[in-house]
């Protein structure tokens, strides 16, 4: 069964600190995505990747970096975390015009 695993599931970070959110997929999908979900905004695309070694900016990339070292792994990096980055983050994987599979999410609180 298709699986996307995110870690950690919950994270409290201090302002100015570095945060790394990790994602692993066992679907062998080419495409991977990072979204954040906030009330009133739905799902907003931060970064995406269409294969190992590639990262592309989504709609709200400012303050975030991404890394795709392998087909299976896609990380989201907050170099200098700010309270405005408090949110629920979802990683997902998929291929062209097919179902996108989401992880269970990471709840990040920046204090």
């Amino acid at each position, binding site marked *: 069964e298709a699986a996307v695993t995110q870690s950690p599931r919950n994270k409290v970070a201090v302002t100015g600190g570095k945060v790394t959110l990790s994602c692993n997929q066992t679907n062998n999908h080419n495409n991977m995505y990072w979204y954040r979900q906030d009330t009133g905004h*739905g799902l907003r695309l931060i970064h995406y990747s269409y294969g190992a070694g590639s990262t592309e900016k989504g709609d709200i990339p400012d303050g975030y970096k991404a890394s795709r070292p392998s087909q299976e792994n896609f990380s989201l990096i907050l170099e200098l975390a700010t309270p405005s980055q408090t949110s629920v983050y979802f990683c997902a994987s998929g291929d062209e015009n097919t179902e996108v599979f989401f992880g269970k*999410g990471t709840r990040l609180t920046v204090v």
Partner: protein
Amino acid sequence: QQQVRQSPQSLTVWEGGTTVLTCSYEDSTFNYFPWYQQFPGEGPALLISILSVSDKKEDGRFTTFFNKREKKLSLHIIDSQPGDSATYFCAASDDTNAYKVIFGKGTHLHVLP
């Protein structure tokens, strides 16, 4: 910026009633339209999807309609159940930019017993 507009933002229906959610989009190159269902504490999961070559797709109590001329789609849930209470997202993608799936902002559905 490509957009998918979804309405209503929130909806309450009685058990047994019919729920109708709607979305509109701008980019005529979109050709794949999935609907995702999200329960609290979980990630969204695919509920039903339709390609632009079709105008209707059914899956049990769930039916999605697509109107290419008006650039609109809808999700109908008949005999709505309390277990259908969730957030529903419509989305769109196309072959020319298939790396990106554009999501609507979601509809919070509450089905009252």
